[in-house]
């Protein structure tokens, strides 16, 4: 593959805190962590997905002026950023493991037609859906 999505970034309130969350708790790996003055380019990867990087970026200078950075911090903190989806093999096991590590779940695993899903937030307020696909998700009424 020569074309495709390589990096998608999240805004986080604190990059050290985000690093601890995504690496020590979720089990991602650091791909790039480079600083230049106030700026820090930080990306992580899910171990089984080497072609994709998740950027953990902090709003602020030199990219944003103070007012814009404040607005972005507010938007993230009130959970208004778009939903993120984490596909897993076993939603219940992920829930048990991450709950024990103190991850803030917004929804316990729920079994629905052919899927199990749960939800959690990162420390900044970004919301993740955890989805396990058990069977082809065809509900009888959607056919």
């Amino acid at each position: 593959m020569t074309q495709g999505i390589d990096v998608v970034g999240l805004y986080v309130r604190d990059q050290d805190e985000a690093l601890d969350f995504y690496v020590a708790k979720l089990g991602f790996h650091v791909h790039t962590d480079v600083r230049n003055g106030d700026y820090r380019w930080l990306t992580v990867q899910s171990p089984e997905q080497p072609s994709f990087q998740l950027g953990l970026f902090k709003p602020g200078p030199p990219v944003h002026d103070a007012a814009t950075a404040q607005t972005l911090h507010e938007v993230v903190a009130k959970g208004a950023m778009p939903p993120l989806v984490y596909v897993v093999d076993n939603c219940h096991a992920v829930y048990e493991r991450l709950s024990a590590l103190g991850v803030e779940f917004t929804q316990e695993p729920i079994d629905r037609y052919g899927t199990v899903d749960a939800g959690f937030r990162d420390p900044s307020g970004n919301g993740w859906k955890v989805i396990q696909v058990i069977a082809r998700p065809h509900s009888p009424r959607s056919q």
Partner: protein
Amino acid sequence: MSQSPGLLRRLLRAKDRMDRTSHEEWSIHRLAWVSAVSAAHFARSFKEAFGIPPHRYLLTRRIERAIALLRDTDLPITEIALQTGWKSLGTFGRIFRDVTGESPGSLRVRERSTPYEREHVPECSVRAANRPDLKIAVSEKRREKIVGKTELQSTEVL
């Protein structure tokens, strides 16, 4: 006016808790405790952050959940009312009609006769998209409909 991101993150926690267990009773004191702010501060801050008073938000979540149960299960309407946090079937039916414009029974019939394409959208996002948009208070909505008539005040404690 700008709110501190730290406060917003704690207010979000209270909103998440209502999402997670909307059938429970959520007094302002309990919500304020989750957000670690004073009860007096909580309601004002929540409305400023999310554009809707906390109890009205809870109401939309309960109705949303009731709609999902009507659509996806064969549970009797009384049972759905209890499961979604109402103490009486009468209050549930009245508020449900006020918010959605139809009775739980007729919504169930209509929802079930409508096929949808949504296999590729996470369930929670589908529900959020179908959440009733409650811009005004239910009592206000009712007042608009029955101008001049005696207003029925909900005695339900949310």
